């Protein structure tokens, strides 16, 4: 009897079309949206990128890192070093910054992979603190107080003049638009890349390692290689995102660039409330996070407490996150990765 395998669902075909329309709209956004919206969208897209990489690491790779700020900071510092000390164009420097994060990730993995579970988490945090302390000793980049990007470097950035002329905006707005478009490309490449990975046999192996590492080894999965692959990929992407965030901020300090709250705690919040181990989770999570931040940012520490209470409530009520609630009830998948066997002795009614 012959069987076929499908991953597509009707909802996924609809969501693919909606996705393409959304992407076209996002590309065109600077032509009709104000500067405030562009900055908000930049924030959403960069946080989404960080969240997708953390989700790849923890949700699919089973590597719960709380040291992602090491890679954000490494990428950001690499950007400043390349621009200020190396005279590189900031746009090129953003792309290269990922390699700085990789350079930190290799020794980090070497040590941290000797640890498991909670020990791994703490280990990555400790290493991130060490990287922060080293960065604060970098005198030519302002040491502990940090430094700013030179004004002429950001003003003369690639594409800025072109955007100024095409859209008829001032230099500062053009820089925001450029950063937004780069963030959009980064988020799309991240989501597309992770989705592609999960649909390959490597993606299956990754899920197997997450679910049961000893059993995975026993069926021929190279568990060590899978861990290295996701760790290094996440570090690279997180580094690029970090550089981009600080290109837009144009000012860096070790405490900000290596902040565990901003670059790891918020990111974990986004993934956990959205739904860990799903592609859709971080997207929902970042929207909820942005909404809460916009609503509650003026309330100071009450804001953080609200985030905490919400995170704990969701973990208790819906451990699989908001997307988990949706997909449980509707079995909706916007990014279908499950291979479903059809045909042969599987008729539709028995196929569950």
């Amino acid at each position, binding site marked *: 009897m012959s069987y076929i395998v499908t991953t597509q669902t009707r909802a996924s075909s609809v969501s693919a079309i909606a996705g393409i329309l959304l992407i076209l709209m996002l590309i065109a956004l600077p032509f009709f949206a104000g500067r405030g919206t562009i900055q908000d969208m930049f924030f959403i897209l960069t946080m989404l990128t960080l969240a997708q990489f953390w989700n790849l690491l923890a949700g699919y790779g089973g590597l719960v890192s709380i040291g992602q700020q090491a890679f954000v900071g490494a990428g950001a510092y690499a950007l400043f070093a390349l621009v200020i000390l190396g005279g590189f164009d900031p746009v090129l420097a953003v792309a290269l910054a990922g390699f700085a994060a990789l350079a930190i990730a290799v020794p980090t993995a070497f040590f941290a992979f000797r640890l498991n579970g909670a020990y791994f988490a703490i280990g990555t945090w400790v290493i991130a603190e060490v990287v922060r302390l080293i960065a604060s000793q970098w005198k030519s980049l302002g040491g502990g107080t940090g430094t700013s990007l030179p004004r002429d470097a950001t003003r003369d950035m690639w594409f800025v003049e072109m955007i100024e002329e095409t859209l008829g905006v001032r230099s500062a707005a053009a820089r925001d638009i450029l950063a937004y478009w780069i963030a959009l490309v980064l988020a799309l490449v991240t989501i597309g890349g992770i989705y592609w990975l999960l649909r390959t046999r490597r993606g299956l*192996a990754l899920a197997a390692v997450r679910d*049961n590492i000893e*059993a*995975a*080894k026993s*069926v*021929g*999965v190279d568990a060590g290689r899978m861990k290295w692959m996701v760790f290094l990929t996440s570090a690279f992407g997180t580094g690029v995102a970090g550089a981009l965030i600080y290109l837009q901020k144009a000012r860096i300090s070790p405490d900000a660039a290596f902040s565990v709250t901003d670059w790891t705690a918020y990111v974990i919040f986004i993934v956990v409330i959205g739904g860990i181990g799903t592609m859709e989770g971080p997207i929902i999570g970042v929207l909820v996070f942005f909404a809460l931040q916009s609503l509650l940012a003026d309330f100071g520490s009450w804001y953080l407490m609200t985030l905490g209470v919400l995170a704990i409530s969701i973990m208790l009520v819906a451990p699989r996150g908001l997307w988990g609630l949706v997909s449980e009830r509707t079995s909706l998948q916007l990014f279908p990765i499950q*291979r479903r066997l059809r045909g042969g002795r599987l008729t539709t009614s028995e196929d*569950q």
Partner: protein
Amino acid sequence: MSILALKDVSKKFGALTVTNGVTFDVPKGQALGIIGPNGAGKSTLFNLITGNLSADAGRIHFQDRDVTRVSAKDRCLSGVGRSFQIPQPFEKLTVYENLLVAATHGCNLSEAAVQADCADVLEQTELIRRANTPAGQLSLLERKRLELARAMATQPNLLLLDEIAGGLTEGECQALIGTIKDIHARGVTIIWIEHVLHALTSVVERLLVLDFGKIIGIGDPDEIMASKKVREIYLGIDI
């Protein structure tokens, strides 16, 4: 010709010697049963053969190749398949995906190349109707079947079964024996650890008894079960 040969294999956990100078070989195509009291070191012996644990001393040869220092992953690729005593499914993957991982990685093939084989194994192990169910939702019998199916998907030459009949009803057990006999009839060498003796003896041609990490008897199942030493140690019968 033997497919597997162990020579003076030992393993210690701290001061406890779990495998103590074990030497035996398994001819190609044979079904060997392993029995012994709890804590005799049966599962450890399996872990040493599959490479999930590494031996402290001795050599292990598989298909005339010294695999003593070869990783679990590479032993699987060379043809060692196993089931776990406590089923270890990939819970969030579906039954079919569980097999897909095993077939693509255990045989180093593409998904398209193994699709039909995986469906075949699901039919043989009577899991086909559960193909698209997440493995975490399976019953005990189905989990045991999945252990067997996943090991089969790696196309093993040597199949290690660890208490696969434990906890099943008599009817379930008979059905599983039928499946295992079919697999054996196709020429797969089997080593089977089992407490359910009648299930074991209905399949195996040779029996090995382990106690305190040592082999205390190996040979024809009837003779082994009749021997005084085995009855004393294994069955606790004072004769």
